[in-house]
């Protein structure tokens, strides 16, 4: 199972930028314990939501041919807590992209308020510097991501059961 930390894309400009939303809810069980009596979305999961938004943006720009893997967190600064009931807007933009990797800039907004600034780097696994080989199937962009994209009106990678 993959944990998907974005609900929908509300903006998608191929090769440039994308905005996804994540609705934080009390139905997410981990929030009950993080923290007892003070439920907030873990910051590491906000990083993951950015990695998914920005990673799909990077993947789409290469027709989902590359296995796009989070390789480095260049910056992650948090200004506010994200709580149940919050709608987070995850803004990601591609800063640089090369054969082997891509770098992205991003911020997470709640209305006008900036919740976090998160800049990431992604590696294109099959073009990795070490020359390591990985399975042929693209295990990064799975069906669940396709569903999120399709529900957002953005073409995603072809789903497994349709192949």
């Amino acid at each position, binding site marked *: 199972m993959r944990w998907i930390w974005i609900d929908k894309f509300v903006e998608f400009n191929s090769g440039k930028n994308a905005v996804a939303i994540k609705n934080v809810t009390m139905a997410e069980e981990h929030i009950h314990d993080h923290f007892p009596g003070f439920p907030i979305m873990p910051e590491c999961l906000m990083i993951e939501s950015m990695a998914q938004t920005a990673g799909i943006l990077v993947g789409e720009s290469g027709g989902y041919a590359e296995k796009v893997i989070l390789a*480095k967190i*260049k910056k992650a600064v948090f200004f506010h807590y994200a709580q149940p009931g919050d709608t987070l807007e995850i803004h990601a933009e591609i800063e*640089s992209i*090369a054969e082997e*990797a891509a*770098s992205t800039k991003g911020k997470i907004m709640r209305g006008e308020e900036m919740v976090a600034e998160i800049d990431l*780097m992604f*590696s294109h696994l099959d073009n990795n510097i070490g020359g390591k080989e990985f399975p042929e199937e693209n295990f990064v962009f799975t069906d669940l991501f396709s569903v999120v994209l399709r529900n957002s009106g953005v073409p995603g990678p072809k789903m497994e059961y349709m192949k």
Partner: protein
Amino acid sequence: MAMSREQILEQIQDVLIEALGVDDDEVTPEATLMGDLGAESIDFLDIVFRMEKAFGLKIPREELFPAEALMGSEEFVADGKLTDKGLEELKTRMPHSDLSKFEADPQVSKIGDLFTVEVLVNFVELKLNA
């Protein structure tokens, strides 16, 4: 764009402080990126992207860090050392580096030490004056 070596060094220092999370006093011209500053493979790409931005240059990674391209070839590497041909190739590809010390004992495992802060400065200087 006319930039002095000092200005280039300052910009490179900023790039490395940001990319590697190191302190400014660690980023001396002699410091090696891997050994002294702890750079890993993905950091090299981060550094390239940041340098492109800082200097407005297009920098192919294999031009700045050309050593990997030699590794897979028997012609260039034998018994963990660069062959004469390999050394020649590296010299041609790395005009921004002084290989005189490395030449005496061209072990592949020591290639990482060639990438110093100064080498990045040399590279940018050559590029800007090209």
